[in-house]
């Protein structure tokens, strides 16, 4: 085990920090929000030029040879700066979904276009009734056509291609779809954190290609979602850390009752709890990354535990960051409220605490032991 970044990873973290310091000041971010797309094409080109769109992808899959740690570094930095572009849905979820497919000319071409920044591909998998559960899909594939509905496809408004999951009698398949095709209606909306998303309705919509045949899609989409879960947890850690620093700086300067707020022990203890939640989230993020190479049930449990912890921590830190700021924390023009909005969205993204506790509760053994069906007395 080694919890230190390599020099290359340090350089990547520095590079992300330089980009956000220059291009993602709070004022610049507000201007981008005002433009109404949540996507600056120059930013996206920079992600491509800096190699970030393929940073977490193995070389033999068309990436630059990194892995989930590289993605974590980028997402943590993006969390600190509240980056708006749909990096996570494209560079993590879509790319890793594609990478989990067997190599093919089509797959390799799609990955190459994404990594080069030439194509934005989003995965349309989640549905309103799934509530984040990865295996619940009502959308149907029949006779080369898709019928059904997908919800909250972040970045879907900008996507040139969609990867759509749909069910057949043989199981789940994945299909490449042109979002401009007939039979697809789109509802474009903003999330509370100013990311952009779409809901999609498919009515006998045509597919361009079959990416994973019916029955082969579950494992592929699971791989993409696993990287998404890890990425969003890293983003949460970055946003929590930034919110904690911002709150600490605020209470050490804000004066009430003739002294700074930081002298009140109640506030000190609240901030200690916020720090603890952030550090525990980082710890369990690491175990989530470690689980990506493990077998199905181990990985399922590890990621569920990770997101359960991160979801509750994100809310706790975000809510209390606003609380400690007082009234100013409620204002649109002050940054801390935007951290809460991001952390609120992250808390529910890919399923909230309840979903992931339910997943854990459905497993027959704990993290570190054999099955419970052991004979008495108490512990074998």
């Amino acid at each position: 085990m080694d919890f230190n970044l390599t020099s290359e990873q340090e350089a990547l973290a520095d590079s992300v920090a330089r980009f956000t310091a220059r291009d993602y000041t709070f004022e610049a971010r507000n201007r981008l929000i005002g433009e109404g797309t949540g996507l600056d094409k120059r930013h996206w080109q920079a992600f491509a030029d800096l190699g970030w769109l393929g940073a977490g992808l193995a070389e033999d899959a068309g990436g630059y040879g990194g892995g989930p740690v590289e993605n974590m570094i980028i997402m943590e930095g993006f969390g600190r700066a509240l980056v708006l572009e749909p990096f996570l849905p494209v560079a993590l979820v879509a790319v890793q979904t594609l990478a989990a497919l067997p190599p093919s000319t089509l797959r390799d071409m799609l990955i190459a276009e994404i990594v080069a920044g030439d194509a934005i591909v989003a995965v349309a998998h989640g549905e309103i009734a799934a509530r984040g559960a990865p295996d619940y899909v009502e959308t149907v594939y029949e006779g080369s056509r898709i019928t059904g509905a997908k919800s909250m496809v972040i970045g879907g408004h900008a996507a040139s291609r969609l990867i759509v999951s749909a069910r057949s009698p043989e199981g789940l398949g994945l299909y490449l779809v042109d979002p401009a095709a007939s039979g697809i209606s789109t509802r474009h909306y903003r999330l509370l954190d100013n990311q952009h998303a779409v809901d999609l309705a498919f009515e006998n919509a045509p597919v361009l290609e079959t990416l994973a045949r019916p029955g082969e899609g579950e494992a592929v989409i699971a791989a993409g979602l696993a990287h998404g879960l890890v990425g969003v947890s890293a983003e949460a850690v970055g946003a929590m850390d930034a919110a904690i620093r911002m709150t600490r700086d605020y209470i050490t300067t804000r004066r009430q009752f003739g002294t700074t707020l930081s002298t009140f022990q109640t506030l000190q203890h609240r901030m200690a709890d916020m720090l603890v939640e952030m550090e525990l989230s980082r710890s369990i993020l690491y175990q989530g990354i470690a689980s990506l190479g493990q077998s199905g049930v181990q990985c399922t449990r590890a990621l569920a535990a990770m997101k359960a912890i991160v979801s509750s921590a994100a809310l706790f830190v975000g809510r209390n960051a606003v609380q400690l700021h007082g009234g100013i924390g409620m204002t649109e023009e002050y940054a801390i409220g935007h951290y809460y909005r991001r952390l609120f969205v992250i808390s529910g993204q890919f399923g909230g605490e309840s979903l992931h506790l339910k997943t854990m509760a459905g497993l027959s053994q704990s993290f570190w032991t054999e099955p419970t069906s052991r004979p008495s007395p108490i512990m074998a």
Partner: protein
Amino acid sequence: MDFEIAPEDQAFRAEVRAFIAAQLPPDIARRGQHDYHSARDDVRRWMRILNTKGWSAPHWPARFGGTDWSPLRKYIFQDELRRARAPVLDRCALDLLGPVLCTFGSPEQQARFLPPILNGDAWWNQGFSEPGSGSDLASLRTRADLEGDHYIVNGQKIWTSEAHYGDWIFALVRTDQTAKPQAGISFLLIDMKSPGIVRRPIWSIDEGLSLNEIFFDNVRVPAENLVGEPGQGWSYAKFLLTHERTTSAVVSHTKRDVDQVRHLAAAARSGSGVLLDDPAFAAKLARLEAEVIALEWSVMRVLHAAENDAAGNAVASLLKLRGSELSERAALLAAEALGDHGLAVMPDPEGNHILHHDGLSPGLTDDEAIGVSAKAMFRRATTIYGGASEIQRTLIAKSILGL
């Protein structure tokens, strides 16, 4: 970054597990399942077995009888001991006094006091807290006045764990009445058989005995029993409290407790099914398990961090705070799993651990339930001892956040 445990370390875990399985006497293992404080004789027997393997104090330097294991291996070793429910060893001697003597003790003190610890022959107590000095330890008043070649000790210590077993006590005593509070304190080793020492047991709310008061009335202690320099006791105490940064997380205990809850809930009837299938209970257990995973990975981060690593210090600071909370929560959940019988007094079948031998309770001897309700009560202390949670939060706010 690399989050995988190396194959050699996994093999080490298997080796430790096999050794314990082969060597832990069955009667000791059986008593360990009930979670009462380990009996003195069980600890002694087990220490001698470990000592034949050279494993009774792995975290000490090798030249004093320890090992050169990495921090991860030391953790794995403790994790396996807890998993097997081996006796809880004399922590005061092994984790607190040992490292201080190895670092600050004289060669004579090291030669005299360390070997009996390794062989389980000497049981040590920690004499820090006093009736007027709990969280505010530096205000302690027990005094030691030098007369010729002896210190004369007068005062009182309290909350002394397992002092009814104790052969020796290492105590913080005030040797200089004029210095500033922290500067006048020395670290003194006192034979518990000395004339003038009176022990009084303090029965706790779990109806168990682990705590004691100790009174010192003109107790004569040879001056050679002072460790290091006079007036440096406070720095030695700080050293011992920070030396072992991950023990206070008690994560291995709590992992085992989570498994116990799961086992109890899988057997506990709930309506026509079992409690483990009750969604509300299962969610509570899942939440506890997730938090314990986060805690264990925090321990991993600290084990692999350098002593002065700022990030490592930040993580280390949360281990006691959260570890103690989870420890209590696991015990409460175990009691909840037992339903009505989780509210009942379940006597220790060995008869050592109950205040009122009134003849009523022995009727209830549900093997699954023994020790569970007592543990729920005793664990109320976890967020109080070793630096209360409120102290921990203040430390985090000041030392990590700079508030």
